[in-house]
């Protein structure tokens, strides 16, 4: 069955959601991933939206933003932003989704600027809730297009902390997060248009977990700005099932987010 790269990304994102989990749903593709997980393998997951919203059913219409009217209808709780991010600060949210303009091998994300931070060449929109989700969720799932200039050895600016960097006090990874005072979490997965990466929490480094059908380890390396390390069980990404594609296309019939 034919499918688009973005449809596969939505499927990979949905598969990160375990049944019963509380999920901080980000913009764009995660909105669809939440709806897909909900209607397939994770019927009991609960979605939390930074506008100040919790719901346990997918919205009845395609969402362009999480504040769209259909997302409010039938919600479990409509409240304030600091109440829902506060739940995450208290450690109660299992999984958070974010996107980024740039990422590096340690899962640090940049959505703020390209170039020197004092005189940037390109100014990007900024954190939104991204830095909070990266800081406070138990696990972080990152979704972004795979291009060599986006997957870099080191990002120009760390908006949303991943596993930091090795320094004189110790390695990157969970140890770095503890050193800087982050309470938990760190990137669990990076889903791109070409591949899926997981992370080694002891070194903080991204591991190529799978390459999408039609791609290859060589092609992924070509488009990645650091020397790849492979997960021991690195393999081809499991393609979408017909059922997964059917649900995605019901949610986004005109391919607004998936074409």
């Amino acid at each position, binding site marked *: 069955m034919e499918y688009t790269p973005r449809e596969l990304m939505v499927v990979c994102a949905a598969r990160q959601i375990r049944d019963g989990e509380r999920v901080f749903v980000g*913009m764009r593709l995660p909105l669809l991933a939440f709806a897909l997980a909900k209607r397939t393998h994770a019927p009991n997951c609960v979605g939390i*939206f*930074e*506008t*100040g*919203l919790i719901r346990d059913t997918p919205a009845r219409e395609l969402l*362009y*933003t*999480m*504040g*769209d*009217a*259909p997302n*409010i*209808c039938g*919600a479990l709780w*409509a*409240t*304030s*932003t*600091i109440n829902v*991010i*506060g739940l995450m*600060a208290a450690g109660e949210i299992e999984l958070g989704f974010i996107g980024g303009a740039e990422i590096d091998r340690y899962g640090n994300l940049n959505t*703020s600027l390209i170039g020197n*931070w004092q005189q*940037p*060449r*390109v*100014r*990007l*929109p*900024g*954190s*939104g*809730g*991204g*830095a*909070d989700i*990266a*800081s*406070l969720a138990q696990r972080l799932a990152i979704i972004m297009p795979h291009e060599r200039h986006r997957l870099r050895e080191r990002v120009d*600016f*760390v*908006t*949303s*902390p991943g596993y*930091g960097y090795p320094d004189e006090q110790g390695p990157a990874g969970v140890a*770095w*997060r503890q050193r*800087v*005072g*982050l*309470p938990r979490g760190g990137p669990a997965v990076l889903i791109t248009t070409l591949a899926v990466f997981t992370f080694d929490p002891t070194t903080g480094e991204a591991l190529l977990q799978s390459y999408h059908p039609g791609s290859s380890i060589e092609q992924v390396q070509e488009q990645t700005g650091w020397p790849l390390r492979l997960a021991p069980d690195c393999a081809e990404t499991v393609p979408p099932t017909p059922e997964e594609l059917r649900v995605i296309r019901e949610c986004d019939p005109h391919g607004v987010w998936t074409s």
Partner: protein
Amino acid sequence: MSKLLSMTEAIRRYVPDGASVALGLALEPCIPFAAGHEIIRQGRRDLTLIGPISDILFDQLIGAGCVAKIQAAWVGNVSEGLGHCYRRATEQALPRSIVTEDHSNFTIGLALRAASLGAPYIPTRSLLGSDLPRKNPTFLQASSPFDGSPLLLVPALQPDVTILHVQRSDEDGNAHLWGSLGICQEAMLAARQVIIVAEEIVPREVITSDPNRVIGPSYKVCAVVHEPWGAHPSAVQGYYDRDHQFYHEYHTRTRTPEGFQQWLDEWVLGLKTRQEYMAKLGPARQGALGVKEHRYAAPVDYGY
């Protein structure tokens, strides 16, 4: 006491040059575009804008040269991506340079919450290890006096004026707001003064019939403006949905400074009032965005 004013008069009196203005506080919905457009028409300068994820109203105010400083978590076009005017201002100082103090959605909410509590700051563990504190010199990194663990201290932020778009208000500024609230309540409680822009003006009894739905105390409200469709192209729950196509057109048309100026002439400077704006938008587009199926909440009983 009636605080009803025209939008023109409310902006003239309460949003002076140099003011710090919090707006767009519910994130994507209930953005007070009509108020922002009047600020542009009156040629305000040197404003500080305060907000969470801000959609294209911040971009428009920046492009029109009204803004000196941004204290926000995100500036762009939510459904389209980058804000072209924000990029031109920060990268090329066009039409002028602006200062940015970067926040996250949580820290901007905490900064306003701190002000609302009379607290000098609120500590958090969010953003530890992020470079954002470099872009926001108001943050302080410190150790917890209890256990020595690292903390980020977010200082209180008090807007001169907060502008809120709500579903309904009485003439005194007792206002009902429903849907997801973003940081609206924090910004109202933190502000020195508040302008309420309402889809409907209702009798006081309608508001007092459901006091749990009131967003904050009306004594903080300096002006109430009746402006139906005043939040278009953003959504107002129970009144109209978001006009996604409008954001797409804005994104496409404002890639160049000339394109932005044409857009601004057409949709802001060339129109005197919101009524003219709505006439230009046309009944067909309004109809497509309006409520198709009402969904009323069950009544609650405040009886005793």
